[in-house]
């Protein structure tokens, strides 16, 4: 459990994992994101909530989309942002990670947004920064990607009213997916009626059921009557190590096609954390189809990250004053 992401009064100090967060806090993030969402439509897209604050995007793993939305979110909150891409292969592991942090702290930054290829890296960094510095996990190994999960919940809430009534299916590489782990925790915290995972055994963690999900290996059975379909990106390297025979066979068995989608509820929405592999985990017709909300997810990413950044930096300024 991420025991140290909350302050003594139960407010967010870091944002490392959905695990351990209570439903009202997740709801507050989404409510606040709704308010920020309206800012995107204004002429001046900035609020001065984090004016004077310095945010460092620390990306030890390549990412364009996530980094960009974090940058935009920070800028719309009027913070100063620096983005650093650090090649992990040249960094000599733990020690230099700590040294990097201390160097950056010496520049008096207030927040690190961290992406790293090792599970637990964000937790490690949170343990080693100065007490006033907040850490936001932008993806650590196969562990967690909590801001992605929150923007997904936000997107679901925009389309579906009541979480407990929902059936949600997550399809694909659950084993290696930090997105899936965080989504499952968020869906469970929000009281979703049934969470399903659909994948071949090679892409599911052992003891997957302990995550609180129903396991399906067959798409037709798993998709039946679901309200939300989430497909995960399939990394090309999964063909190595005998996890899968080929992308072609994967698409045949687990690719989301119009036919398979028709088994879900007629008003089911289709989501994907991106970037999508057309013809591998999802057919173009579905990705671009009327039930797809994939691009909305990207848009919502900014408002949700604004909400989380402003909450973690403990800005006590009343939101209403700036958004009114």
């Amino acid at each position: 459990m991420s025991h140290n992401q909350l302050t003594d009064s139960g407010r967010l100090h870091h944002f490392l994992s959905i695990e351990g967060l209570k439903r009202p806090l997740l709801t507050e993030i989404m409510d606040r994101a709704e308010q920020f969402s309206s800012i995107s439509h204004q002429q001046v897209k900035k609020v001065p909530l984090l004016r004077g604050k310095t945010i460092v995007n620390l990306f030890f793993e390549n990412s364009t989309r996530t980094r960009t939305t974090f940058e935009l979110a920070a800028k719309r909150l009027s913070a100063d942002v620096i983005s650093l891409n650090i090649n992990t292969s040249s960094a000599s592991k733990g020690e230099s990670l700590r040294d990097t942090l201390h160097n950056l702290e010496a520049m008096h930054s207030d927040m690190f947004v961290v992406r790293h290829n090792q599970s637990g890296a964000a937790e490690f960094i949170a343990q080693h920064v100065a007490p006033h510095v907040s850490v936001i996990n932008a993806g650590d190994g196969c562990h967690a990607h909590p801001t992605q999960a929150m923007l997904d919940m936000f997107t679901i809430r925009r389309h579906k009213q009541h979480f407990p009534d929902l059936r949600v299916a997550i399809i694909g590489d659950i084993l290696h997916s930090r997105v899936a782990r965080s989504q499952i925790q968020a869906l469970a915290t929000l009281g979703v009626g049934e969470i399903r995972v659909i994948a071949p055994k090679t892409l599911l963690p052992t003891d997957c059921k302990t995550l609180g999900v129903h396991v399906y290996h067959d798409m037709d059975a798993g998709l039946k009557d679901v309200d939300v379909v989430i497909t995960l990106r399939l990394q090309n390297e999964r063909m190595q190590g005998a996890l899968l025979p080929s992308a072609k066979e994967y698409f045949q068995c687990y690719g989301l096609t119009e036919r398979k989608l028709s088994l879900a509820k007629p008003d089911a929405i289709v989501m994907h954390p991106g970037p999508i592999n057309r013809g591998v985990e999802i057919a173009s017709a579905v990705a671009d189809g009327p039930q797809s909300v994939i691009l909305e997810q990207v848009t919502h990413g900014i408002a949700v990250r604004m909400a989380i950044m402003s909450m973690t930096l403990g800005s006590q300024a009343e939101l209403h004053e700036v958004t009114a």
Partner: protein
Amino acid sequence: MNLHIKNGRVIDPASQIDAQQDIFIRDGKIVAISTHLDGFVADQTIDATGLIVCPGLVDLNARLREPGQEHTATIESETLAAVAGGITSLCVPPDTDPVIDTPAVVELIEDRAKKAGRAMVYTIGALTQKLQGELLTEMAALKMAGCIGVSNGLAPIKNSLILRRAMEYAATLDLTLFINSIDPWLQGNGCVHEGAISARLGLTGIPETAETIAVARDLLLIELTGVRAHFHNISCGKTVTLIKDAQNKGLAVTADVSAHHLHLSEHDIGNYDTLSHVMPPLRSIRDREQLQQGLREGIISAISSHHQPLDNDAKLGPFAETMPGISGLETLLALTMKLVDDEEITLHQAIASLTSHPADILGIDAGQLKIGAQADICIFNPNIHNECHPHSFVSAGKNSPFSGWLFNNKVSHTIFDGKLVFEQDKIHSIAV
């Protein structure tokens, strides 16, 4: 030099002694275990009233980091830690740098240990050259130099034919084979037990079958070759069953378990606690219970420290990037005695699993209080409040997940070769 240990409760399971007795030591040897000895004039007397006096502990597996990693720990620093933990004999595996695959390395380690003068250090020679699993070492020469057995350390021999040949050759020389069984493919780059915790934390798991498949293969080859074998640090409940079956078949097979695997489980990793990062990984609670059961039944006959001192930086980083290992010399007795407090094993089982049983596995004359034998003795208080503070360990490695654990026992004196080498809160300097 005459040493008199008086009024202690002397417990030696191998000699079936459990009585209030005195021990009289002259010139490094035990001369009497009785209530008095006529004409004995003590130069030094230890009042052991209320304390347990038992044979000096024998540890089957401790890494001292010398030669090769003297910046982390040395034979000097770690034998000091050993006697602070009541251990007077310990055994080092061959994965030093250079590897213990030539008599020269054996001699170097023995020389350093002799100079330190605090505990007997036994060496396990390499089974294959540089532990590469390809060419046999000169095992006869290693045995002559003093190795008490052979092992390939933590590097599994993938090629079953080479393992078979190595076993046959070791059997020819009547050398015990020490094995850490692991299937390298199933282990992969895993760092935790494959189960609920690996699923939750997104860490690569090591399935139980990584151990059981390798143990099953090794047992079949042991049966084929007739080598005497000892399994180090088993971690799975099912391994206990495999070893039980082999023992019932009459194979010369023994096993030990680490003190930490008897107390911790995968759940102790909590939120990426790197101090609980060990190899083999901490398994499920059920596995832990089955290991305890195996110990009760005598299938597992020894408890070892599997001491791996590390510097602080080795444990600082994202979990999978940190070094596995626990600094275990100074908690070996305390953790074993905690099993007695928890009524998992009896006091005699506890002491035997730390003294005569490991000594028998090593084939050494230790772990027993015998008249005429070298006086290696551990004296501990079984009734004292003792909170574990790894930062004050004598060992150069402070890497222990047991910080804050409360024990009801503490080593008060350690005697090696008839000399007081450790006394609670002070370490005696030895004139060599």
